[in-house]
């Protein structure tokens, strides 16, 4: 038996110029914050942007962007709701915030289903907020989306960077483009992440200092835009184009 859904995914994504997976080896490094703020920065600069929260078991971009009453439209599939100038897609539309425990096979199925039924508009960028690690979602995207690019987020911790090395090695071996690495929550003047990133043959696109004000900006995009965090993400945005 053949699963017909994968045959339509390329067609669904054909009007998107850049698909950027915001990834990390470990959780808790700020992927969702970077992904959400990057999407806002791109939209503020006049780009057509989509944001797809692929962290199905722990979605959080809707909380960061304060998305409460948005709903996708049903029209020959699903048309994402537009929020803050961003075409926004998340499992949250269907789970309504209920706990959604999923095994790998279910994550894979949910990802393929949403990729095959979602009708994105013509986009300059589709930002994917990835679950941590190199599990099912990452492997499926590598299999299903040609031309996908990765933006890797890390902290200064040697533990986080060790997993970045693994992710970078995997992507390099598969000849997948890595836009660069972002060091988040930087709390000292160490250059270790920069030098280690260069050793991997990758570019450190930005260093974001630990921003104690970010917590209070969650759910309020106006306030988020005024944080040091957002100003650093804006610098990164300017570099990735």
């Amino acid at each position, binding site marked *: 038996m053949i*699963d017909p859904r994968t045959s*339509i995914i390329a*067609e669904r994504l054909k009007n998107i110029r850049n698909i950027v997976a915001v990834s990390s080896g470990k959780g808790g490094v700020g992927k969702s914050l970077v992904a959400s703020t990057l999407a806002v920065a791109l939209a503020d600069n006049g780009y057509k942007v989509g944001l797809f929260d692929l962290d199905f078991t722990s979605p959080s971009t809707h909380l960061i962007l304060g998305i409460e009453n948005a709903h996708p439209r049903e029209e020959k599939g*699903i048309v994402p709701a537009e929020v803050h100038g961003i075409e926004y897609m998340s499992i949250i539309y269907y789970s*309504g915030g*209920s706990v959604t425990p999923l095994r790998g096979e279910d994550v894979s199925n949910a990802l393929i289903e949403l990729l095959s039924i979602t*009708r994105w508009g013509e986009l300059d960028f589709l930002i994917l907020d990835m679950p941590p690690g190199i599990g099912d979602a990452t492997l499926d995207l590598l299999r299903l989306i040609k031309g996908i690019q990765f933006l890797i987020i890390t902290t200064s911790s040697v533990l986080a960077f060790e997993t970045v090395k693994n992710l970078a090695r995997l992507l390099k071996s598969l000849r997948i483009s890595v836009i660069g690495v972002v060091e988040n929550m930087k709390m000292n003047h160490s250059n270790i992440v920069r030098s280690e990133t260069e050793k991997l043959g990758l570019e450190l696109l930005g260093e974001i200092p630990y921003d104690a004000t970010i917590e209070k900006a969650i759910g309020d995009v106006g306030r988020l835009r005024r944080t040091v965090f957002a100003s650093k993400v804006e610098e990164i945005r300017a570099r990735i184009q």
Partner: protein
Amino acid sequence: MFVLHEWALAEAVIAAALEVADKESLNRVTEVVLKVGELQGIELEILEFAFSQLKRGKLENAEFKTGMAKAEFQCRVCGHKWVLDKQKLDENVAEAIHFLPEIAHAYLRCPGCESPDFEVVEGRGIWLQTIRGVR
């Protein structure tokens, strides 16, 4: 009726069937047999209407046959097996599952031990079962 979610799935079926026809060097396809899972609550009438509007090229004269597979679950914790009782599903839950069957894990529980860790053994989505054609 053509604005519904079934349209997107029908497009996927057409694309997949055309791929198979090319791969198997079929000049024209006479029959496409599909298995549609009960869990997703796909309206067969709408699906068939979408096929009639979308079929093209080698599929122009193909007949689309759709069979329904009952939704069956098995708990990974206690091993209990059960079938879907649609009557008990809240309308909003049924709609969420219609779009994304995995959402069942947010709303359904094993009737034996109440675990959300269950497998959809049968009846999840839409499958291309057989394709017949002329070379």
